[in-house]
């Protein structure tokens, strides 16, 4: 009986050696000595296999970082950073596949299907750490905008994934820099900033009416 993991690994092996997707599930199953039926018990299509590889990596990352002793002491920002570092560290082990898969996916528009599961898990995780951050006051709770924070993190994720795919530095040191700088900037935007104070001040002036006339605007 072929396990989910075996099919995933066989699939990775196939696309990397052949440089393309198998022509059919039949050919793929026959080559790796299991039946077509077994394949369909686990997956609906090859896209499904690819999607599950990405999703599993995400779940594994989240599970792993939460076991760290320091995890409960981390701020939301540090939790976010920790996810990014660990994810790309894990992904290193599957770099060839990740490059193959993401380059193929990049051709379409919007979020490619193969990232659907990954995106869902990522957003659940982000929503949770962001919520914690807002509760502790680390991040600013802005009307409407606060719900969109996770989208900003997702964009950052897409950017760093793309950066990593093209990164040729030793030990992917540049990706570490991209994470440190990029994720920090994103979280800086989530924090209370001078713009909040400016808006606040603006609101105050409007509420205390008629300032336009008085100031001769």
């Amino acid at each position: 009986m072929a396990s989910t993991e075996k099919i995933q690994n066989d699939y990775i092996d196939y696309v990397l050696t052949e440089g393309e997707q198998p022509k059919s599930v039949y050919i793929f199953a026959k080559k790796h000595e299991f039946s077509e039926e077994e394949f369909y018990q686990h997956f609906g299509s090859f896209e499904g296999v690819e999607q599950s590889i990405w999703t599993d990596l995400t779940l594994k990352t989240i599970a792993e970082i939460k076991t760290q002793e320091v995890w409960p002491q981390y701020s939301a920002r540090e939790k976010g950073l920790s996810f990014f570092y660990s994810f790309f560290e894990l992904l290193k082990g599957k770099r060839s596949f990740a490059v193959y898969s993401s380059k193929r996916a990049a051709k379409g528009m919007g979020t490619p299907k193969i990232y659907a599961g990954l995106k869902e898990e990522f957003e659940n995780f982000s929503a949770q750490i962001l919520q914690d951050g807002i509760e502790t006051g680390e991040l600013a709770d802005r009307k409407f905008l606060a719900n969109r924070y996770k989208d900003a993190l997702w964009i950052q994720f897409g950017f760093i994934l793309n950066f990593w795919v093209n990164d040729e530095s030793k030990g992917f040191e540049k990706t570490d820099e991209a994470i440190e700088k990029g994720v920090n900037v994103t979280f800086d935007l989530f924090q209370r900033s001078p713009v909040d104070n400016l808006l606040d001040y603006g609101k105050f002036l409007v509420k205390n009416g008629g300032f336009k006339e008085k100031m001769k605007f």
Partner: protein
Amino acid sequence: MSEQGKEQNSIPTSKVQRSAKFVKTGFKIGGNYVKHYSKKLFNPDMNKDELNEDNAADIYESLSELKGSALKVAQMLSMDKNILPTAYVDKFSQSQYNAPPLSGPLIVQTFKKYFGKSPEQIYDKFNLKSTNAASIGQVHEAELNGEKLAVKIQYPGVGDSISSDLKLVKPFAFRLLGMSEKELDIYMREVEERLLEETDYELEVRRSIEFTQACKDLKNVVFPTYYPELSKKRIITMSWLEGKHLKEYLQSNPSQEERNLIGQALWDFYNFQQHELRAVHADPHPGNFMITPEGKLGVIDFGCIKEMPDDFYYPFFSTTSTDLLQNKEETIKAFRQLEMILPKDNPQQIEFYYQAYKEMISLFAKPYMTDSFDFSQTEFFDRLYAFGEKIAKMPEFKQARGVKHFIYVNRTNFGLYNILHELKAEVKTDTYRPHVLLEY
């Protein structure tokens, strides 16, 4: 730098002020990028030249405002032109203080990458919040088997940014000083080489162990113990050295005797290295020394080592001996070896440079010419500065002179003189004498 050479009314002196200077530069450079990209929106053909120039101008502006006394003296011996690289050296050791501290997760990531383990798995205790900034990294406190440790972690990408920053400023510097690329290049490469060496922590650990071993018999000098098995390319583990930094130590009003003892330890440490090892800890930054509770000198950070080849060592240090300076013919030969007198110089030029350098060296080498020297006297330093100013204004010194080794050897010795001056120490200067050759 649109205005012609900004007026300088004050010189930033403290480290805080100096780093504030660089924070400002950082903002400006950030602003330059914004300017560049917004212009580019309207004019996609625009290339990066203008941006680089803006950046270089801002970097240089902050450099030229940084004329600390050490720099001024360096100006004297290194002859105006190599002042620029010297400024880089100082700029780089200073500017690193602005780097934002590494996040906890990045530290964990760095350990995982190099050891395959998290810091908690390696040490019994590890403080994720850093205690100090080192020049290109930060220091964390840790504990293993009951021993307190200092763990130094390097910022990622430092090596790359050194090379690219130097490249960025280079073309601007050539034009600003009106000197040819070839002339300046020798010095620039020397600086780049040393700076890049500083980023190799494995090399630093090897050298630290070698140097602490070689210097172990020096009186009143102590070193931390290094742990190579707990060190990697970007991580160094060493024992924690307790003590006060020079500034704090001086504030505690140590007696003349105590200060002399520390000063003597410093003098011996440097001159033993220069004259016996022919390689020297070339970063006499006060932050690299500690005064231990027992009143000894603790030396940390062997990132920057300058090795002196014989063809530099002998002609340079022999001129500190009156026996050689009295022999004009041999002195000129030594100056030629050091490229202070160049083959194409005519007889008048030879005479001019011979006199100027002779005057300068006899001033610089004063501490070496007697058995002991009192570094508290300001008169000696005033004369050094005054001479530096005079030389800087002479058109004859507008051209680069002197071999590349001067940059770091000068920096080391002026750094040493300055610290001794701050200590107001009187030291016996005949403990480790230069080895002298009288014929060239």
